[in-house]
């Protein structure tokens, strides 16, 4: 399914995707095939060995193999109609080699020994052809083979085992709740992904991983035909590394904001949120247009997650810092010199940002990256100071490090792996402090929830973000809804204006399936956690226009 069709069918705005990207690809299959576990590890090991041996025999000094079976299920509805149900499978092998000091890559969906061997040879041939224009040989950080390993996302309910009818019934109930509460239109969707990934390398690793992710979401619109105005509100759910258990009602996982919305941690009540969304979309039709100026911004994790993604996650990717992304996504203001100074004040002293690929429930949670490196967590910004980047095996030596940080990822078996963002999260403040306390302590502010329009420059300085819900705060209380709000800042100024961070009880996840990067474009899934956070004196613009 092409991304453009995906966005159109889902009813999500273009802002639902973070960058131009490739395809949500695969072959449509029947529902029960989603439960087929695919070839067992012994079969995959034999196929991997065919590839590794063929590559070595043609002169490769290193080779790795990814055998991937990617299962996806998408359900699209609007009002009382099911627009589409898509079950897809994509299965094949990608082989990457180093020959003549140069990378080569080839892939095939013909899983016969002779096709796999030929594919490995093609990868070596490509490396040899391109060695002509390679300035320096690839340097690969050592990675000891980990032998045969198995890893699985710790889910409680496999979403693929839930009957389609149950899922459709849920979406119809969601749509019914929205329409009953005044929505003019509603699109609701469920997305489920299961990546069965087998990795093997000439280092001696044979790693079998079973990764699960999901996203329940909707967009509710309210129309006033007399005034010609329309407003929408998207779900406050998070794409998440959990099973179907995420779609349950658990009061302990709910936070009810005084005079404001209800937000969710690790249990999402989709019907309740759709009901609220319909009422709020209607309220937005008559909300006050924001006067431009400086405000203290209280950002919910459903909003700040995207800002973390763009203003911290991307600028600290080592391949950008070095210039490998210059032709598309750009470079980074966070240069090597700033890291080496050990004193670059990325944010205020309460700002601690971690990279973490082992954090439970996150979209980026895996046991090993796509180079067979065991996953871990590490500091990116500590007490406000920049302390590290994110790197892969072939770049980490440029940081003076000897070990990869495990940031390699490929969208599918037919795409080459490269440096992708791990989960990057703002750490909660150790002092007890709730969203209630934060609103009470704010004199002139705006409280923003949900992801909206987002844009940031190619070195990650200047950004502009919007949201779904905007509440005006005056003298410690929410006094009403605002409209036409977007906040603009410079990354370093913004993070240095970080004044208060709530505690761990308010910590929640934001996530995306569609972080785009690379040429040809690839998408990856990632989460960003944080509690509600306040940034003082941020510039707010009014985006209302007339045509």
């Amino acid at each position: 399914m092409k991304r453009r069709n995906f966005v159109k069918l889902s009813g999500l705005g273009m802002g639902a995707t973070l960058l131009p990207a490739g395809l949500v690809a695969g072959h449509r299959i029947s529902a029960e095939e989603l439960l087929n576990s695919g070839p067992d590890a012994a079969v995959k090991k034999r196929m991997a060995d065919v590839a590794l041996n063929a590559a070595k025999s043609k002169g490769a000094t290193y080779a790795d193999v990814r055998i991937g079976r990617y299962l996806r299920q998408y359900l699209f509805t609007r009002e009382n109609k099911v627009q589409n149900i898509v079950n897809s499978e994509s299965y094949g092998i990608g082989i990457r080699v180093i020959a003549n000091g140069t990378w080569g890559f080839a892939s095939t969906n013909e899983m016969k020994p002779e096709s796999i061997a030929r594919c490995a040879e093609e990868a070596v041939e490509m490396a040899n052809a391109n060695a002509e224009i390679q300035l320096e040989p690839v340097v690969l950080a050592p990675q000891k083979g980990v032998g045969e390993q198995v890893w699985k996302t710790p889910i409680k309910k496999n979403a693929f085992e839930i009957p389609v009818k149950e899922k459709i019934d849920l979406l119809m109930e969601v749509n019914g709740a929205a329409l009953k509460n005044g929505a003019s239109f509603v699109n609701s969707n469920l997305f489920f992904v299961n990546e069965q990934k087998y990795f093997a390398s000439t280092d001696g690793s044979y790693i079998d991983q079973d990764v699960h992710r999901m996203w329940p979401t909707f967009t509710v619109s309210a129309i006033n035909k007399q005034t010609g105005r329309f407003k929408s509100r998207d779900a406050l759910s998070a794409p998440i590394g959990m099973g179907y258990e995420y779609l349950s009602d658990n009061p302990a996982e709910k936070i009810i904001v005084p005079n404001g919305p209800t937000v969710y941690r690790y249990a999402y009540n989709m019907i309740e949120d759709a009901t609220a969304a319909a009422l709020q979309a209607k309220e937005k039709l008559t909300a006050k247009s924001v006067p431009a100026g400086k405000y203290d911004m209280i950002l919910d994790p459903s909003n700040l997650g995207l800002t973390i993604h763009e203003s911290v996650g991307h600028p600290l990717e080592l391949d950008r810092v070095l210039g490998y992304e210059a032709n598309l996504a750009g470079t980074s203001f966070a240069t090597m010199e700033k890291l080496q100074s050990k004193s670059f004040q990325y944010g205020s002293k309460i700002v601690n940002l971690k990279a973490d690929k082992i954090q439970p429930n996150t979209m980026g949670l895996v046991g090993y990256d796509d180079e067979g490196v065991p996953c871990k967590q590490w500091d990116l910004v500590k007490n406000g100071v920049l302390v590290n980047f994110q790197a892969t095996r072939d770049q980490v030596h440029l940081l003076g490090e000897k070990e990869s940080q495990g940031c390699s990822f490929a969208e599918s078996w037919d795409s080459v792996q490269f440096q992708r963002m791990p989960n990057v999260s703002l750490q909660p403040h150790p002092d007890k402090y709730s969203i209630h306390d934060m609103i009470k302590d704010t004199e002139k502010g705006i409280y923003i929830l949900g992801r909206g329009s987002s844009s940031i420059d190619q070195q990650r300085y200047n950004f502009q973000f919007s949201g779904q819900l905007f509440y005006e705060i005056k003298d410690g209380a929410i006094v009403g809804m605002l409209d036409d709000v977007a906040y603009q800042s410079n990354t370093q100024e913004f993070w240095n204006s970080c004044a208060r961070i709530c505690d761990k009880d308010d910590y929640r996840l934001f996530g995306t399936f569609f972080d785009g990067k690379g040429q040809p474009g690839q998408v990856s899934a990632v989460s960003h956690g944080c509690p509600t956070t306040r940034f003082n004196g941020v510039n707010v613009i009014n985006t209302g226009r007339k045509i």
Partner: protein
Amino acid sequence: MAILSQEEAKKIIDKVLSYSKADEMKVELTGGRSGNIRFARNSVSTAGATNNLSLSVTVVLGKRIGTSDINEFDDASLEKAVRRAEEMARLAPENPEYMPMPGPQTYAKPQAFVETTANMKAPDRAKLAGASIKSIMASQLSGAGFLEDSSSFNAIGNSKGLFGYHKNTSVNFSLTIRTPDGTGSGYAAGDYNDATKLNTGSLTDIAIQKAKASQKAAALEPGKYTVILEPLAAGELVQFMIRAMDARTADEGRSFLSKKGGGTRLGEKLLDERVTIYSDPTDVQIPSSPFSAEGYPHERVTWFDKGVVKNLSYSAFWAKQKGAKPLPEPSGFVMTGGTQSLAELIKGTEKGILVTRFWYTRWLDPQTLLYTGLTRDGTFYIDKGQIKHPVKNFRFNESPVIMLNNLEALGIPERTRGNMVPPMRIRDFTFSSLSDAV
């Protein structure tokens, strides 16, 4: 194998259609190959090649629809795909908006396949990338670029006798060149069906020149400026507008084309009278597929004529509701222009800003079609018809609808990202803040 001839494609489609007695059935075949090379820091970074051939079968039982895809082509696999689609159709809920498939259609014959492009191989790509890198290094600059070529076909057939076949080639090259001190950056890009039209040398020269000229940019205050948008920048905003011309969304009251009180703005003059935009799959500069995924023909369609909204795109379902003809969204568009070159547009500008390209452009409001984004890789101040100096990049907040009402002049259209777009001089273009990014 990946590129099937029309006869080969029809044979497979007819065979698959014979496997079912469903109420309706559609078969699509797509295949092709693509190759790419990417470089950065004046050295190759990644490269790849793929081949693919895929079959998609859609079966309709009453108003229940099932689709199955497969990429194996022996008889047993083809039949398996049909049985899976039938099974999915039996399981699917009825779709009340289902529309019967169209019967035989007449399609245009665009010339979109060029043998030279189809024959490109890894050494050809390495040679083109290598030549570009050589020029960049000779200028003591640092370059990052991407070259991708592909050849593909698609064929469609259904149980009502419809059949269509189209093949296509494409090649695109883009590069960004930066100065060693990090204060200058230049960009150039080209895309064609015919690889012989791609001149990587001249594109590299443009990017080198822009990188050198954009060093040590001065800051200007944000505000409203007269701008000259090169086709790459202008085309991005116009494309967003063309993609938002869906009739149903407009009728439902949630589009920039919705009318206050109900209805659409079809027939209204919405843009400057110099704005005419049409699509035509047979256009020699941007040939594209003559049929949509549903099998409806892509024909020459005028979307805006002298600023007036002339057509909206209709799905088959919405067309029936409104008594209109199904009209698919175009895959590319042509915006007519003037006779001036970019250099002449610059010469005729008293004071203004030249924009090479935009970056990270995202919607802010679908009602006003307001977008935000930033300038990038070559932004220059023009004074009395001359480029005076580079300026720091700006964030813009602007709507293509407002922009195309503030038109001062149009230049000669150029192909950019599969569209034909003229350079434009626009007054009162809104830059809302400055960026230090280079």
